[in-house]
């Protein structure tokens, strides 16, 4: 297998030169190539939830000693596309008394930022769409916008359960964003860069010639940061055990109770893409990105690591019970946040000690 990223990059460069040769200005060629790259990336990302939903169903079924979807296609492989098709053709209902504009905007605000977040993520060699200097900060900033979408969904549905779900969701996401961002600060300190590609490349070295110098292997600091990031990411994606915004037993379905058809599908999609994004970030920041033994290309390694983290997400779902809402906040502010701060101090001390 080859380095798909580098091949793609070369292909795009070649196409751009060809366009210029055909009489386009370099600027137009650049725009065209960027549009192409973006389209490709977004299509790939859009396909990811299909696999994730299938994987989630299968894995959770195995964890509960069931078989999961079996009837549609071989091993139930076509179940998810079928469900997607069904969602496509469902009627789009706007509840009476709801604000239709906000009802619609909520979907856009919740789902659109996710795709933007992928721009600086390096999926392997040659991959990041734009080599953004503020990389990780950009991702956090843009993913913060989704909070607005959840609030708007809660408000725009004219439904008490939605409203409660929206408020809970916003409170939870705003709170957990802080330990999530702070858990990454040690990484940024160590590699003195916010750029995701720089961070990934900096981890492609070895300790004593064999031990991968991934961030998670820094004793103490790396593991604490990774666990903090993982917990906060699970909370950010509103998944069990942090799924009180949509807790079925309390709030029907939380903020997307009143959504149907494609609008609902987009909330659903956004959640799974967020899972993928968080796992990809975890792989980039803590697990060395595309680093790995040479017999596989970097994008395969990256996918494997991301898959491993995604598996953790699915595993959590069937392992932990749901937290009560006050416990959830207490956990964030009284445990995760101080721990993240202590971790930053430790990291700073480590660096000072190394450089002194």
């Amino acid at each position, binding site marked *: 297998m080859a380095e798909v990223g580098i091949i793609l990059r070369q292909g795009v460069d070649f196409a751009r030169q060809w366009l210029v040769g055909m009489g386009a200005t370099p600027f137009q060629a650049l725009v065209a190539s960027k549009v192409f790259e973006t389209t490709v990336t977004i299509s790939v990302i859009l396909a990811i939830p299909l696999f994730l939903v299938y994987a989630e169903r299968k894995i959770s079924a195995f964890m509960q000693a069931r078989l999961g979807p079996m009837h549609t296609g071989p091993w139930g492989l076509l179940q998810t596309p079928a469900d997607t098709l069904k969602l496509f053709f469902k009627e789009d209902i706007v509840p009476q008394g709801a604000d239709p504009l906000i009802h619609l905007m909520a979907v856009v605000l919740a789902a659109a930022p996710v795709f933007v977040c992928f721009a600086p993520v390096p999926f392997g060699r040659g991959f990041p769409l734009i080599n953004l200097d503020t990389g990780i900060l950009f991702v956090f*900033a843009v993913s913060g916008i989704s909070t607005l979408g959840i609030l708007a969904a809660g408000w725009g549905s004219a439904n008490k359960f939605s409203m409660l779900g929206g408020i809970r969701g916003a409170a939870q996401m705003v709170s957990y964003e802080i330990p999530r961002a702070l858990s990454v600060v040690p990484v940024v300190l160590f590699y003195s860069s916010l750029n995701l590609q720089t961070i990934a490349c900096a981890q492609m070295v070895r300790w004593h010639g064999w031990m991968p110098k991934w961030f998670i292997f820094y004793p103490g600091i790396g593991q604490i940061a990774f666990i903090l990031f993982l917990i906060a990411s699970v909370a950010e994606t509103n998944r069990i055990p942090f799924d009180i915004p949509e807790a079925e037993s309390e709030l029907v379905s939380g903020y997307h109770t009143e959504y149907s058809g494609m609008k609902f599908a987009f909330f659903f999609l956004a959640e799974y893409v967020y899972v993928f994004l968080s796992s990809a970030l975890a792989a980039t920041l803590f697990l060395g990105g595309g680093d790995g033994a040479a017999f596989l290309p970097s994008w395969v390694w990256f996918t494997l690591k991301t898959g491993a983290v995604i598996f953790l997400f699915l595993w959590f779902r069937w392992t932990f019970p749901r937290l009560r809402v006050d416990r959830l906040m207490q956990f964030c502010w009284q445990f995760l946040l101080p721990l993240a701060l202590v971790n930053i101090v430790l990291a700073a001390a480590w660096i000072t000690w190394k450089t002194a």
Partner: protein
Amino acid sequence: MTLETGIFYGLGGLLLILSLLVVTTRNLFRGALALSTALGVMAGLFVLLGGDFLAAGQLLIYVGGVMVLILFVVMFVQTPALFRAPQTNRRWIPALVLGAGVAAVFIHIFYTVPMPEETLAPAAPTSAALGKLLLGDMAVPFEVVSLILLAALVGALVFGLEREL
């Protein structure tokens, strides 16, 4: 017209429309959403002017933080009557005149003061240099701001408490 100028006009127009929406709409929730979008557009303008770190900070703090808070409060104090009543007070005409006056005076000033005419390309990435600046020459203002934040935290707690301390 370069690409940057085009983007600038686009973003600027969008910004003005959105902010007009903020001050005119009767539905506060819509107004708040428009404001958040306007702040996002502002982040785009920052990028255009070479402030990549600032743009991310703007999104993170304003859109992800302050606006969520404002939406929260809107949801907290929502009364249907609030949205049907006229949203301007009795003096909206003088206010309009004054607003126009402010704009006119500013623009007048900008045209009387000599301005550099050249346009510049977006600068190099700023995060590292900005970090050095904030912890170096701007250390004291930085610390003062942290004090202000602490005071705001305590103040918000005191005002927001249901019962007296």
